[in-house]
């Protein structure tokens, strides 16, 4: 994945709770075997509605997605992360993420910013008032800030995830450094454990 240190820009307020991965990218899009081209499927069942927030002119070009609580619950489809990223977002903000979605974010360099609901709501209001509000997310400092409205918050991200974000590291490559440990574990597995062949 590409390295990400800081995400700076404008945000879109998607002010509803429980936006599950079926809403982020409907299952019709999952039939594709390619890794790109999912931006057209992002929220596709809502985008016909001209009043949908992504269609509003003042939010076009924003690179931070503000979501309600329980964002990305449901299916394991990594396509949801690909769609958000390929549409142009570099970070997603919510008070609570679906766990598989959040994990998938970290594998692709989409920054999952998990902060308390009060701060998310304050950011939503601020962005609704001023769509040009500038927001800065700093991965190393684990901070999100909108100085113009005096909002600032800290979010959790493990040291190992931060390291991979900052350096754009390949997870598999890191694990392969432990091949000796895997070999050794494998040689001690009980022989009665099942095989598929």
């Amino acid at each position: 994945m590409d390295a990400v240190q800081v995400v700076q820009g404008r945000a879109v307020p998607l002010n509803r709770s429980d936006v599950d991965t079926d809403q982020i990218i409907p299952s019709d899009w999952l039939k594709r075997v390619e890794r790109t081209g999912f931006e057209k499927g992002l929220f596709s069942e809502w985008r016909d509605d001209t009043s949908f927030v992504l269609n509003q002119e003042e939010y076009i070009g924003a690179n931070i997605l503000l979501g309600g609580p329980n964002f990305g619950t449901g299916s394991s489809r990594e396509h949801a992360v690909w769609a958000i990223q390929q549409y142009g977002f570099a970070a997603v903000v919510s008070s609570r993420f679906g766990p598989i979605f959040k994990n998938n974010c970290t594998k692709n360099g989409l920054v999952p910013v998990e902060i308390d609901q009060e701060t998310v709501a304050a950011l939503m209001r601020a962005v609704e008032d001023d769509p040009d509000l500038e927001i800065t997310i700093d991965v190393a400092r684990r901070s999100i800030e909108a100085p113009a409205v005096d909002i600032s918050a800290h979010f959790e991200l493990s040291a190992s995830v931060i390291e991979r974000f900052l350096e754009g590291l390949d997870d598999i490559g890191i694990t392969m450094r432990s091949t000796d440990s895997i070999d050794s574990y494998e040689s001690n597995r009980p022989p009665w454990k099942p095989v598929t062949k």
Partner: protein
Amino acid sequence: MGKTLSQKVWEQHVVRTGGGQPDLLYIDLHLIHEVTSPQAFDGLRITKRPVRRPDLTISTEDHNIPTKDIHLPIEDPVSLKQVQTLRDNCKEFDIRLFSMGDPNNGIVHVVGPELGLTQPGMTVVCGDSHTSTHGAFGAIAFGIGTSEVEHVLATQTLPQPAQETMSITVNGELPEGSTAKDVVLAILGKVGTGGGIGAIAEFRGPVIEALSMEGRMTVCNMAIEFGAKAGLIAPDQTTFDYLKGRPHAPAGDDWDTAVAAWTELNTDDDAVFDREVVLDGSTIKPHVSWGTNPGQVIEVGAQIPSPSDFADPADQDAAQRALEYMGFEAGTPTNEIKVDTVFIGSCTNSRIEDLRAAAAVVKGHKVKDGMRTLVVPGSGLVKAQAIEEGLDQIFLEAGFDWREPGCSMCLAMNPDKLAVGERCASTSNRNFEGRQGRGGRTHLVSPEVAAATAIMGTFATPADLEA
């Protein structure tokens, strides 16, 4: 202090720990299907990495495949390409595959257990969130994304951050007519869609212990719906009886060795869970979901709630949106809601016991005029068993459509879809907007309630048929 079941299974799989990195866990079984694997295999080709353990990997076609006329080529060219891609990848990387029409083909979470591949104390992963199903055997089983699918293919391991432990105890005894599905819907109603985030949940207590393996799989299947990393149940005699003699279960002396090891897999009396939830099973009645997330549930016969029934503003807002999407007036009783379609199937409720339960309700009745009905067995083996028991004839005589195995209308990736506004009583696991087809309206129920609803035309329990 003692350890919980999930801590014991976790510790048995740690390949590497410490060093500021999450634990690296060994994966005993990797299940693959056509939807979440193509980009992972592409990744292996690009990096020239082989599959480390094809013999711990198994594959099936399930999400896309049609449930009728399966002797014909798949009509949708995009689905066909995805299924063909899986066949090509399994051939190239030497992975055993159960293709459409193979007697062992079926939904990935039905196939693993029925072949005896899912066993207590294992780690099981799949690029599918309902992998939690396999926790019914006392395994740590969880859904992963495509990047992680590639990681497991390449290394047979996954780095995993530590999880909290959660116990969900269901005390007492279920009332007559209530099922495993009602238990898990009641749990969802209590903890909500986020209640398990960051934790591995262990289901415990007399109600859980009394469930069959099929019932336990139904409960664990929906652990992801409340956000748990995994859900599991301690193995016991019910587990061992289910496994014994299955094709991949240990045999001979290995069986005794395995059972001795499995018997150790339970939570110590002095273990302390990070979170505890307790339900009284004797109060759990048949449930139905009314909204667009699986935490929005009520008892069959109750009234559709109003947004003002909820305290949290986010819940009020979600309820308002759900009422609009579902086309409801608050206060409508469920037995006045006309249902268009009944779907019996999915990795939650398509096993032989589910079909037996639905058939027992249906027997001697006819489906309501104009009702669309589908019974989709979870696998070729379930289908064959059902035919042997004559269940197919019971469904057909009542007017049900009897189909070939697959995921089908649970997520509408194949031709089985709801139309805009079509209302469905479904034994599946997700009532999200558009889940069963754009604009479709899904209500989650047990096989028994689905069957009774097919006959009555409105939401009903088997008891209502006798009334």
